[in-house]
Structure formats: structure tokens, C-alpha cells
């Protein structure tokens, strides 16, 4: 489910992602729901809700973990036993590298790369114009190339 994957990559937690996606669907049933079919598609709206909810949790968890001096991504991922089995060291490295990106760059990268969302739709989800989306994606990719340079597939093969 794309929404779950998106929430998971933003929060780094299966439990949080599950809560967020569930909440996001139920939000549609509320009378105060702000969804307007004339303005945007359901998909874009739901991604927007997941993004906002994830940011809230991300910031809350980040503050809590800063207090205890921990690193958020692995610590939160450890909550899921399935995740422990599946996760490799390289996945951790990539997750950390993505996590270290500035907030908006991280969201654009996840939507564009992992969800294959068109840039125009990303702009609608994040309330950004197309130029801003492109520049953030470029900056995110450039930053990741630098951070993950040591793990480049070419280098691995050469090792």
C-alpha cells in the first residue's frame, strides 16, 4: 500500500505508519473533513494527510529521542520484529541518509523515488510549485550521492 510505505519511510516505524494510515482513511468520514473533490484527487489528498500526520509524529519522536540522546530511525525500527529480520545494514545506512535530509527534501525524494509520483502531483501534496519540487529533489539527490558515496553499487562490485 503506497500510503503505508510513504508513512513508514517518513516515520521509520511500522506502528506509527499503521496508525497514521488508519487515521488518514477515517479522516475522510469525518464531517469536518477538508477534502474537496473539485480541488484535488483523493490520492493526492490522502498523501497530504499522511504527510502532515507523519511530520507531527516525526517531530514529536525526534524531540523525545533527542532528549535521551538516541538515534531515531533504528530505535523506532527496532519496535518491529519483522523489520529486524528484514533489515540489512545497508538499509539502515540508506534510511539514516534519507532521514538526515531536510524535511521537504526528504518528502520530495520519497514521493518521487519510492512512490513514483509525478512531480506536479508532489507539488499539490506539498503545496509547492513545480520549480520548488524539482530543485528540492535535485538537492536531495545530490546530498545523498555525497553521503552514500562509499556505498555506491560500483564500489561494492569493485570491492
Amino acid at each position: 500500500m503506497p500510503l503505508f510505505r510513504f508513512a513508514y519511510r517518513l516515520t521509520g516505524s511500522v506502528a506509527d505508519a499503521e496508525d497514521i494510515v488508519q487515521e488518514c482513511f477515517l479522516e475522510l468520514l469525518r464531517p469536518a473533513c477538508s477534502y474537496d473533490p473539485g480541488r484535488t484527487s483523493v490520492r493526492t489528498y490522502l498523501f497530504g494527510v499522511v504527510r502532515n500526520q507523519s511530520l507531527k509524529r516525526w517531530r514529536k519522536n525526534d524531540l523525545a529521542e533527542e532528549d535521551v540522546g538516541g538515534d531515531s530511525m533504528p530505535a523506532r525500527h527496532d519496535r518491529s520484529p519483522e523489520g529486524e529480520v528484514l533489515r540489512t545494514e545497508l538499509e539502515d545506512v540508506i534510511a539514516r541518509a534519507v532521514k538526515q535530509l531536510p524535511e521537504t527534501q526528504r518528502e520530495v525524494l520519497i514521493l518521487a523515488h519510492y512512490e513514483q509520483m509525478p512531480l506536479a502531483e508532489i507539488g499539490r501534496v506539498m503545496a509547492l510549485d513545480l520549480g520548488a519540487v524539482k530543485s528540492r529533489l535535485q538537492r536531495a539527490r545530490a546530498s545523498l550521492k555525497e553521503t552514500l558515496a562509499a556505498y555506491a553499487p560500483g564500489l561494492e562490485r569493485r570491492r
Partner: protein
Amino acid sequence: MNDTELDELLDKWSAPPTPVSLRENVRSGFAASVEPRTSPSMQHWIAAFMPSARKRLVAAAILGAGAFLLIVTQAFPQMLRLVSPAVHIPYTVDSEFLRYGDNGSSSIQPHRIQMYSRSYNLNGREIMLSRSLPGNPFGTALRQVLDLLANRQQPLPPDNVFFHGQR
């Protein structure tokens, strides 16, 4: 590192499969939201529509009370004592109100009956129990309701009730 290498590397970060519990929770959440109970969302809905609903309720109550009074007065004119137990009516008088011909004829023309009434005497005053106007159901209903309301204000009559006879 080129773009292709970065994409390959990023692809290695996989997301766990969607938990089965998520679908179940969403389904149960949808089901719970459509159950007929007073949830916060339902309360919001009720609050939004309450003004017009209240008006309709008041209008329906008034109509219902009017219909009830009409039926009671129409079907049980002698039962007013139940409504106003202080009034004791041993006898009532049924009357027909007629209009004579335009030419001054004194012959009774049945089609010129203006009103039927049922009344009793109280201290020399005629108290109407019910009235009906042939061919005028609205006027009949109105008068019967008015008579009923007026009769509720009457004190207990004495035992001497006079017979009026036909007019």
C-alpha cells in the same frame, strides 16, 4: 556516483509489507462510523441540522395536537368532562341553525342549514360543546377547537340544565 547508481542504492531500502491489521482496522473503523449511534460526528451532524429539525418538530407537534383535538371533539363531544373534569353536564341540546328563503318564505329548506350545534345551559348562558358547519370542514374544525378551549375555562355548572329546543 551517478543517478543510476543512486537509484539502485535507494531501491535497497525496502518498506515492510502492509500489516494485515491495518486493513482490518480501517474496515472496522468504516463500519463503526456508519453504525447508528451518537458519535461525535453524528452530534456534529445533528447540531448542523437542529434548527430546521426543531422547527419541523414544533410544526408537527402543533398539527398533531390539532388533529387529536379535532378527533376527540368530533367523535366524543360528551367526553369533554374528561378533559375538564370540573364540568358536569347532565343534558345537552342539539340544534340546527337554518336560514329562510330570500323571498321571506318560512318553509325550512334543508340545503340552507348553516350550522349544527351541541350545547348546554349554564346560569342562563349557552355554552357550546361543539359546532359543525355543513360543507365547511375547516370552519368546523376551527370552531370545535375554539369551543373546546373556551369550555375549559368554565366553572362547575349547577344541576339545572335547560332544554333549548330547535331554533
